[in-house]
Structure formats: C-alpha cells, structure tokens
C-alpha cells in the first residue's frame, strides 16, 4: 500500500515506525531537519513542502497514494491538506488528525469531506476511561462495539488463589473470557491447559466487559470500582476525559491553574467541580481531601508537572494514578516513578490511524507492550482452512483466538465450538507474526 503522511511530528513518526516495513511511505513536512532524522532511521521517501499547498502535494505525488494521513499538530493544516488530498488522489482513503472534538462531530454528521477523523483528545479520553473501568488493568481496549474487551493485567501477590498457581484447565475463570497470553519476563507463552499463572506475570485476557470486571476483582481484590476521580489540568484532553467519565456516572473534580480556563470549564461542564489551583499545594490537597479520590488523572501540558503532581498525589494517599505522557519516553519514566498507568496521546492517535493501513479484512488493531504484541479483529476468508474446525483441534501457531463475532454479536468460544464462514475473530499474536496470521485466517 502506498501511504502518504503529512507531518513528521510525534504522531507521524509513530505511524512510520509501525508501518514502514510493510508499506511504501512518503512523508511530507515543512522542516527538513525532521525529515532528515526520519529518513536516517527508516526507509521512507521524504518531501519538504507545505501540506496546505496543493502544488507541493501534487509534486510529492500524493495522487499515487492509497492512504493519505494528515497528522500535523495543527488542525487547520490537516483539514486543508485532507481536502486537497481528496481532490488530488480520488481513490485514496484520507484520514486527518484533529485536536478539536467539534471536527469529529462535523465529520460524523457528514459535513467534512474526508474518510476518517481521529481526535487525539477523544482517543486518549477513551483509553483512560477504559482503564478506569477496569482499575487493576495495565491496558485495555474494546472490540466489536464494546462487546469484547481486551485487558492486560499485572498479576500480583494478593491475587486470588482461584486463578493463580493452579493449572489453567483447573482454574475457576470468569465466564466468557480467555487468557490469551502470559508474559513472563521477556518470554511470552500462548497458554495451554497445564500452564499456570504465577505472581509477577503479566497476562492478556480477552472476554466480555463483565468478565473483565470480574478478572479485575480476582487479581486485585482490594480495588473497588472507581466512582470519584480528580483530573489535574482542564485543557482539551482533561475536559474530554471529564465529559466521558461524567457520562459514565462518575463524580469528577478538576484542578486547573489558569483562572480564565477554570471559569470556562466550570461554565461548560456544570457536573464537574472545578478548582482554580496549582494542584501541587499541599494545603489545598489536604483541605479538599484529594487523597480520598479513587483515582487521579494528570492531564496537564507538561510531563514534568504531571509527574510531580502525580507523586504528590500518591503522597497524599491517591492509590490509582493515571498520567498523560506527552513524550513517548515519559511512559517508562512515569511507570518507574510509580505512576500506575501512563498514556501517550500521540501513541494512542497513531495506533488509531495505523489501523487504516491494514488489510481491509482487519477491522481493528490494538498494540500491547509498546508494539510487541497485537490483537487484531479479522474477518475470515471464505476459503480459510479454519472454517469448520473445532477449537480444540486447532493448532497453536503463534496466535490465539480470544473471541468470535458472528452476525454482530460476540461469542466466547469453547473447546467444541467451530468457526463459520463470515466470522470475525479477535486474535492475539506477536506483532512480527501479525501479517502471517492474517494471511492464514
């Protein structure tokens, strides 16, 4: 597939990184230095030019591409580039990134002439709200309109002995769920009946949302459902998260340093309690009992501030901290420092955009552990050799099927179930094997 990427910022780089091996990529950016750095690392064509110039787009041969991704940090540039790309490359799929939820709404109403609009803020908010829904999870994603949930857990010492330390075939798992993988140190196991989950493992579970909740309770018995959340930073990401959590019935408090912004947000989100404070004032944290919140989300613009505020919140007793990590490297640093979960908005956005580069049979992709593992939502070929085979007879070849979507509803297969033509499968695999797995299916 020929992919044309406009913007070599963090999102652009993440996209190139994920797609450069299998696809033919051209990157356009106004800054030569960024392009040089990119070309030094990956085998991609680069073109110095302006995404809002139709002439530049044409001379970079946008018209030859199958997929155009406009992912600069500026909405206006992406919108204009998307429009021009649409004119120049009539058959290409156009995807634009935006940081304004309004454009997403416009696109849903069919008012924007592009194929897809991806909002970093919304994707980040969704990622965080999924994590909050399953507090013990390291990462989670949903498939098939929310019917199937993928959750990655850290197994700790306090976990229930019903599932830990016993052979999988004897363990009492929540119904409608499957352990797709056990990650032990650097090794990944596709589990068989006699494998065991041990403390210290990291496991990947695919199941119904209900089952995901039950897993959470089994693995972390102390952690109750999150109802009371404090969000530090009421910028675009912070407010997008707040709106989503309020919609889910949570009580949300927000802390914003800028007075004007605090007022604006307090006016537009009446359900949230907004404070005009720095969030690192111990008196304030004490007086407002921030430490009693079930979870704290750090969505300020500056990673260092997020980290410090998160540490301070921990000191004040917040057990569950989630931070936005604007720089990809911060993710690791944050987790080293004791932040429970870090979300990189650009990574999330890139992940969302990457799925447009997949085989049309692949509806969705979730990336785990950086980019090491993938969970794919793939429709079976009519000629697939797996059709009509019982699950217990299926050979495990570097992949495991966690769920089946048949006629729009999710099925969590048992040993005797069979795959049918037209089924969609939610399959876990190593990223390097993903292509082979998709072809095999």
């Amino acid at each position, binding site marked *: 597939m020929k992919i044309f990427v406009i913007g070599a910022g963090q999102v652009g780089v993440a996209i190139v990184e994920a797609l450069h091996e299998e696809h033919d990529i051209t990157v356009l950016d106004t800054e030569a230095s960024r392009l040089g750095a990119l070309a030094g690392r990956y085998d991609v064509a680069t073109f110095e030019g302006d995404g809002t110039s139709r002439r530049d787009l044409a001379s970079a041969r946008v018209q030859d591409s199958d997929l155009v991704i406009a992912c600069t940090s500026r909405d206006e540039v992406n919108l204009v580039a998307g429009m021009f790309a649409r004119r120049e490359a009539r058959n290409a799929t156009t995807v634009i990134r935006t940081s304004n939820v309004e454009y997403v709404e416009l696109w849903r109403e069919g008012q924007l002439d592009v194929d897809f609009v991806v909002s970093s803020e919304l994707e980040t908010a969704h990622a965080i709200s999924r994590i909050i829904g399953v507090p013990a999870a390291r990462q989670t994603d949903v498939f098939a309109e929310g019917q199937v949930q993928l959750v990655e857990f850290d197994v700790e010492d306090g976990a229930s002995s019903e599932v830990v330390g016993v052979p999988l075939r004897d363990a009492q798992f929540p119904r409608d769920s499957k352990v797709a993988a056990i990650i032990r140190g650097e090794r990944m196991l596709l589990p068989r009946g006699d494998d065991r989950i041990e403390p210290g493992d990291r496991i990947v579970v695919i199941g119904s949302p209900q089952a995901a909740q039950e897993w959470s309770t089994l693995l972390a018995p102390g952690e109750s459902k999150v109802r009371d959340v404090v969000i530090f930073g009421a910028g675009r990401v912070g407010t997008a998260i707040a709106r989503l959590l309020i919609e889910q019935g949570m009580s949300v408090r927000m*802390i*914003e340093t800028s007075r004007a912004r*605090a*007022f604006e*947000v*307090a*006016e537009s989100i*009446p359900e949230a*309690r*907004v*404070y*005009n*404070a720095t969030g690192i004032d111990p008196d*304030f944290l004490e*007086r*407002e009992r921030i430490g009693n919140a079930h979870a704290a989300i750090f969505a300020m613009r500056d990673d260092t501030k997020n980290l410090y505020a998160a540490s301070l919140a921990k000191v004040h007793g917040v057990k569950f901290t989630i931070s936005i990590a604007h720089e990809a490297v911060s993710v690791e640093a944050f987790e080293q420092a004791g932040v429970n979960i870090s979300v990189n908005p650009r990574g999330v956005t890139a992940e969302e955009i990457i799925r447009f580069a997949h085989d049309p049979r692949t509806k969705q992709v979730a990336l785990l552990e950086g980019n090491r593992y993938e969970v794919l939502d793939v429709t079976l070929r009519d000629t697939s050799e797996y059709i009509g085979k019982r699950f217990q007879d299926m050979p495990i070849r570097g992949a495991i099927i966690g769920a089946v979507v048949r006629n729009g509803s999710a099925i969590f297969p048992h040993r005797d179930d069979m795959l049918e033509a037209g089924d969609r499968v939610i399959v876990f695999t190593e990223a390097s094997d993903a292509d082979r797995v998709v072809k095999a299916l």
Partner: protein
Amino acid sequence: MSQAVAQRRAPRRALAVDVPASLNLIGTLGKYLGLVTIFPTAVAIGYGETFWPYVLAGVVASGGSYLLERLTAGSAGRVGVREGFLVVSATWLLTPAFSALPYLFIGGDQLSHPIDAFFEGMSGFTTTGASVVTDFGEISKSLAMWRQFTQWIGGMGIIVLAIAVLPRLRVGGRQLLESELPGPEIAQLSERIRETARLLWVLYVGLTAVLVLLLAGLGWIGVDDRMTLYEAISHAFGTMPTGGFSTQPDSAASFAPASQWILGLFMLLAGANYLLMYRAFVRRQPGRVVRDQELMLYVALVAIASVAIAIQLWGHGIVEGEESIRTGFFQAVSIITTTGMVSADYAVWPSVMLLTIFALMFVGGSAGSTAGSIKVIRHLLIGRILRRELSQTVSPEVVLPVRLNGAPVDERTLRAIAAFVLLYVGAWAVGGSIIAIDSAIVGAGLGPLDALGASATALGNVGPGFGIAGPFGSFAPLGDVSKLTMIALMFLGRLEIVPVVVLLTRHYWRL
C-alpha cells in the same frame, strides 16, 4: 509667560458627552410625546369638561421640544452609550413635569401647588401610584383619566415606545432600551431592539385591551354594577403598568369580588417578564417558559405571601372564607408587583401583617415587566451569590459559576446586581431618614417607621405607604422636602438608580 500660566493650570479635559445630540433626541421624543394629550382632550370633550389644559400641555410639550430639536439640529452627532444615560434621565424628569401641567391648571386646591402637581405627575409616570389627592370627588373625569393614562404610558417606557413607533429615531445601540427596561440585562435580547420594543408594546396593548374587555364585561352582565367602561379603562391603565392609581378613594375595594380577582390575576401577569409571556402566548413555547427559574420563584413568592396574609386575616377574624383568600392574594400580588392598588385598608391590620407588607415592597416583579423595586431575579441571584460565597469560604479554590436557567451569568452582571442592591438599600435609608426628619420638623404625623415605609414605597414604585399615608390615606400632609425626596426616590426607582447616579460621576462627563 502666558504659556507658563497655561501649563500650571490643570489641563481641562474634553467633554465626553455630546450634549447637543442628547438634547436633540430629547426634543424629538418630547415633540411626539406631546401628542398623548389627544386622549385626555377627547375624554374631556366627551364628558363636556374643559379640555384646554390638555391641549395647552400638549402644545407646550411639543412646541418646546420642537424648539429644542431645531436649536440643536445642526450640531447633532450620534447618540451613544454616554448620551443614552443623559437622554433617559432627562426624559424621565421632563415628562412628569409636562404631565403635571393639567394638574397645575385645573387641579384645584389639591393638586395645583407645583410640588404637588409634580409629585402626582412623577408618581403617575413612574407607575408608583402614591398620591397627594385626598378628595376624589373634586377631580374631573378627564383629569382622573389623564392621571391613569400617565401610568400606562410610563409603564412600558416612553423611550421603548418611541423606539417601537418612531421610524427614524437616531438610536444606535440597546443602551437606551436597557436603561429604561426594568431589571438587569441578563437575557440577551436576540431580536433587534426595534423589534423587541415593538413586541413588548404589542403585548402590553393586547393585555390591556383584554383586561378592559373582561372588566367592562363584568359591568355589562351585572356582576359588578360599579364597573363602567370608564372604570374598566382607568383600572386597566392602573393595573397593566403596575401603577396603582385608582379613580376611587377606596381603590379596588369599591368593586365586586369578581373584578378584584381579575385585577389580581392581571397584576400577576403585569409583574411577569413580558418577553417570556411573548414566548408563551405568541410563539407558543410554554414549556421553556414554565421552567424559567425567575418565573417559578415569582409565582411561589406570590403564593406564599397570599397564603401568609390570608391565614393571618382569617386567624385574626378580620375577614373570613373566600374574602380572606381574595384579600390575601390581592394585597400580596399588588405589593409584590409594586402595583399598590388595594382591596382592603391594610393600615389597620395588626403589626405583624404590616411588616409582611413592608417586606413585600422589596420583592418587586420579574425583570422585563412593568414592576419596580429590586425584582425577583436579583433576589434569586443574590441568594446564589451568597451561597457561592459560603462554599468558597470552605474551599477558596473552587470555581462556581452562578447559573440562571442553566446558563452561567456573567461576573460583571453579578457585580452590577450586588451594587444595585446596595445602592437601593442606601437610597431607601437616606430617603427614609430625610422624610422622617422633615416630618418631625413640620409635624406631618408620620413616624420614623412610616417614613421608612414612605421611602420604600416611593423607591419601589409601589404607591401606598403606612400610617396616614396608608392605602386609603394620602401623602398630602407631608412637607415639601419630604415630597421632593419622594419624587427623587420614585425617579431613581423607575430608572433603577444606576443610569441616574452615573450622571453624578466625573468620569461620565470628562474623558
């Protein structure tokens, strides 16, 4: 040398107000305003009474205004925000003076003294309804009708009327309209100002016509034999602008219960927001209207006050049954909406009830109504401001926008409301003190509490006071200083203080 002198003198700042332009607009307004005397002239001719005083008043007003307009025509610039304040204040001083002319000419002993005539004129135009008349028998029919008519013209506003009907009035913004319209400017009027002014007047005229028909209908079918067409019109003119003047010495008490109920209900309407009523009746969006928080509180306050008074009336055995409910409702709605028409002499009621009436004088109707006083919306928002203050005492950092009907209210508006209430209470206290001192000096027979009541009733544009100035009494015995003070209070109250007080600041006049 001369340069040094010029430098030493403080530089005289340029005048910030375009006075000629303001005078020009005042002239234009007055020129047309004189035409309203056609109505009392017709009434006088109809009843075979002397009509020259009205014609003369009209000629004086229109002629004088025409001269003013011509004299300032050449230099007239644009009427902006600053000029607006001057125009509104001056218009509201000059118009009552003009309306006092007929009183001066044929008012007899009761009204022909200039201060008394001006008092009655100001009381009429500001829809206060406080009167210095003691013997209604001596007032001619046309003069009584003129007295009622001034309230009706003043109720919805002279300038609002001018904007609505005059084709090329040189008015740029909404400042003029807003200075005159009662209530804080919270709901942004979406229509153009001319459109807004028009629909306000259309609704006002419409409701008045309906009230006249209903009252006259009661007279025709024999339910209320004292309700002639003349009385129906004059009491509609006293009710819709929440005025309170009556042609009868005992006000609404001289009419049948059915008439009182109808008058009470129309007072309730007159005290509601006209723009809201327009939405309900004309655009047929009753759902949105019913959820309006100010309207709900307004209706609730009327209901609570009615019941409170009714219970006390029945409890003290003053009146019983339907009459206690009717009397309670009528007095409550009349005082809350600052109408001041009464169906009973509350001056003789026990003191707890007097205090109730006193307190109700500070309520006022809704914003965008013809009512005076503080107004329900300001009470509502003051309550919310206080609640926020208390929350922020506990959590200083919390940001709590004050909302009205779900929409956040601008902080400036909130400050303006707090300032208004402070000014209002201040004006009331100062006015009350002056009246009390003056009454003590001239021996008017008005005690300190009654003086404060007189101040409250004038500032709130309510009408009746307490003691000798009670519902069936008169302000005639007051000294001239007290009367002038009340005139000033009525004027301040009608324009809601700020547009007038602004004129007293240096910043207004000089750049």
